[in-house]
């Protein structure tokens, strides 16, 4: 009996950066594509600046488990200052993905080894804050990164991601965030094309 393919994502950020919202938006986008999805934070008292972790799972069938994501298929990291403070990579699967928000390359952040352990083209940093700043006027990269995630993993196409963003944030913020996501989507697609990595959107969805 083929097991219902569940894709698990873990989002790391600091309080106030929208890590929880990012996971929720992923789940809404997946729902829009007709899949089952679950998103929840690892909770703490309301406080900006403290490390925050949130989780999202998608699956073709119903999701019953409620445990935190211990072995993520993908990591989204909103804040590079978390890199050496929190054990970000615990449990990341060998064929998993890493998307980090930074204008510096992974090697410059001391993450070269981590990137090498993963498959080629699976680990990327993108300047999501800068993209967000240009579109929103604020360096809030959470929604922007979701576009990058979609292109990196092929788990979601862009339109449901944009729709989820627009639904959550009233205009003009909704439009601006969606545009930032679209730009990051394109950015990641280009990076992968340049590194001659197979287009994620055709390959990854059928992963069992």
């Amino acid at each position, binding site marked *: *009996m083929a097991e219902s393919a569940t894709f698990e994502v873990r989002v790391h950020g600091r309080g106030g950066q929208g890590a929880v919202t990012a*996971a*929720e938006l992923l*789940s*809404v986008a*997946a*729902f*829009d594509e007709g899949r*089952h*999805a*679950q*998103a*929840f*934070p690892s*909770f703490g*008292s309301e406080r900006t600046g403290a490390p925050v972790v949130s989780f999202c799972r998608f699956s073709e069938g119903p*999701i*019953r*488990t*409620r*445990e*935190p994501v*211990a072995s993520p298929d993908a990591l989204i990291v909103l804040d590079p200052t978390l890199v050496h403070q929190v054990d970000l990579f615990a449990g990341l699967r060998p064929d998993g993905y890493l998307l980090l928000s930074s204008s510096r390359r992974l090697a410059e952040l001391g993450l070269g080894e981590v990137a090498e352990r993963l498959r080629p083209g699976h680990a990327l940093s993108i300047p999501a804050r800068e993209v967000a700043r240009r579109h929103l006027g604020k360096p809030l990269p959470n929604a922007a990164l979701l576009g990058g995630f979609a292109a990196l993993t092929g788990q979601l196409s862009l339109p449901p991601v944009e729709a989820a963003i627009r639904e959550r944030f009233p205009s003009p913020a909704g439009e601006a965030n969606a545009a930032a996501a679209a730009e990051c989507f394109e950015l990641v697609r280009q990076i992968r094309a340049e590194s001659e990595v197979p287009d994620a959107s055709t390959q990854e969805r059928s992963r069992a």
Partner: protein
Amino acid sequence: MLRQIEGSAAVAETVARCRPEVVCAYPISPQTHIVEGLSDLVRNGELSPCEYMTVESEFAALSVCIGASAAGARAYTATASQGLLYMAEALYNASGLGLPIVMTVANRAIGAPINIWNDHSDTMSQRDCGWLQLYAEDNQEAADLHVQAFRIAERLSLPVMVCMDGFILTHAFERIDVPEAAAVDAFLPPFEPRQLLDPAEPMTIGAMVGPEAFAEVKYLAHAKQLQALDVIPEAAAEFESAFGRPSGGLVRCYRCDDAGTVVVALGSVLGTIEDTVDELREEGVSIGALAIKSFRPFPMEAVRDALAGARRVVVLEKALAVGRGGIVSADVGMALRGLHLPVHTVVAGLGGRAITGASLRRLLDAAVADELGDLEFLDLDWNRVGAELRRMADSERSGPHAENILREVGVVAGRPH
């Protein structure tokens, strides 16, 4: 309509569709999103007529509901943990007066030490206060149970707690079919109180009752809860027929019909348990799960029927009767009296510690191999406990346990930068 929304939001919308006339709110994590959602629905006119009151304490919140319900209004509030304890006096008052108030409890641990994360110690501590207690396995059921709760409460004239795991359910986004307004209206008739504060027909409610009558009044409360053993399944059946999905009831058996080992639990942990059961079944292990949906009244017969054929029972519970052991397992044991069936208590998830599939798997492997004791603690750090017990033995002024252990864990700022 099927939507991807937060559990709390689904509960708020569903409760609004039940047309409460008085909603009381005192904020406590992790119930806040529910009462905030209801506030929005009242303010934008979607829930009307409804008086939404922000009160100064949970004790006041339930007291307002008591007055409102006695005056004939459908009344609702929500709380958790410390808040539930703060209204403890009012809990007994509401049930003793027979007022059909519905309250959501976003299950959370009770301090000291203060802890905002999920476990069942709050509602377990109030299991005998005379309220019905229904536990939701997922957010769909959490929403659905509120609709059933108003109906059950008003039918019996008893208050009902709908229990949903704090954070794990309240703050989780998942796919939920929020009951449509028209369907809820058809299912829930307007509130017809059994007693009413009405100038046209004055009555006295809340008289002092002495030894000559107290026992009878108290017995009647018990009898009504026993009636709930019929009313709850009826409401669940009617709900299924009206809304097209099973929800609520007294218990739910998952692959436990022919199971040699049955795991009994309440609330959201059942999802992870069922995944583990499936995994074990794939490997040929005879195992199943029994979900208890109604904890009060405790469904003695249903539990006995479900477990009588097993060889061993594991009760996984998110609460601890300090100085005694299991709470749910005590009731399960009572249900199985005379059957010589080993019942193992496993205390897990206290204070929000995650119950992982891997830990459950190890636990159930041990259960099946008959390696479990009477009382087990899942994923407890015995080294830390041992160290702290030794510290206590060695010195009079050994300090508060919580701080000592946190220092060892490295959470407290005793770490140099």
